[in-house]
């Protein structure tokens, strides 16, 4: 029953599928992001409390969300590699890490630039901000742990273990604004109720979420291809691909 899964998760088929998908994902991401930025900056009405500063949400909220989504994906991929010894699990986990870390930085810096005019400070040791900063440290830890071992297999396993342990931080980030008194505002879209925004503000935000997601998977496909080339250097199929 699992043979189809193992065949699908084999390096040559992952390499082929990822290579085909990458440009289309990036192209459609560009369409959503360009629309989202133009509509969000120029056509969405200013917020009644925050004025034009609220527009930062269009680059900030999807980055924060993606930083958590990517981390969870990295932990799951690491677990797949650790438990079922599927090599592609570790390759995907290694490919996710730098992309996820970059979106964590984007979320933190844009949040800081938004905090200054709204809260009067660039940084506060607030539950949401602190737990997101810990997420960045976890990404950096996973990346450096993988690189710290002479034997790449041991590096993969150690990185997967840290990623899995660190995943407890993800629900903490998400619920921090409900569990504790936080400066950070509550969820706007990701909740079981009507989004607290009118359509003219919401559409560009949803487009940015969609664009960031497509972009993430596009870049991930590119990085997975590179990981596979690195890891399967000695395999005959890789040599055929490169020679062609």
């Amino acid at each position: 029953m699992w043979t189809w899964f193992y065949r699908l998760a084999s390096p040559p088929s992952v390499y082929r599928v990822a290579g085909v998908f990458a440009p289309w994902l990036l192209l459609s991401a560009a369409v959503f992001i360009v629309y989202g930025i133009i509509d969000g900056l120029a056509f969405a009405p200013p917020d009644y409390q925050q004025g034009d500063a609220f527009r930062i949400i269009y680059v900030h909220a999807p980055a924060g969300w993606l930083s958590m989504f990517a981390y969870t994906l990295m932990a799951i991929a690491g677990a797949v590699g650790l438990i079922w010894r599927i090599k592609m699990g570790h390759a995907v986990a290694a490919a996710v890490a730098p992309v996820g870390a970059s979106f964590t930085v984007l979320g933190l810096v844009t949040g800081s630039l938004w905090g200054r005019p709204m809260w009067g400070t660039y940084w506060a040791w607030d539950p949401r901000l602190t737990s997101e900063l810990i997420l960045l440290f976890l990404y950096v830890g996973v990346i450096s742990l993988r690189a710290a071992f002479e034997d790449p297999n041991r590096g993969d396993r150690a990185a997967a273990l840290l990623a899995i342990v660190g995943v407890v931080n993800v629900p903490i980030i998400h619920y921090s604004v409900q569990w504790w008194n936080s400066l950070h505002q509550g969820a706007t879209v990701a909740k079981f109720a009507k989004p607290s925004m009118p359509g003219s503000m919401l559409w560009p935000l949803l487009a940015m979420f969609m664009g960031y997601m497509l972009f993430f998977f596009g870049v991930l496909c590119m990085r997975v291809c590179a990981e596979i080339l690195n890891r399967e250097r000695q395999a005959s199929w890789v040599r055929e691909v490169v020679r062609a």
Partner: protein
Amino acid sequence: MTVGSFFAMGGYARYVWPCFALAISILLWNVWSARRYHAQALKRVRRALAMAGSNGS
């Protein structure tokens, strides 16, 4: 809306514009670094191939 008021962002220009500039830079960095990583991996495979070829196979 005039061009001037668009760039002024209601007085929040120095917070809004850097955020969007950073977002675009990070997106571009991701594409650039993924391409570079892929090119490096290809180069490594080619080098291994050339070494195998010169070993008289």
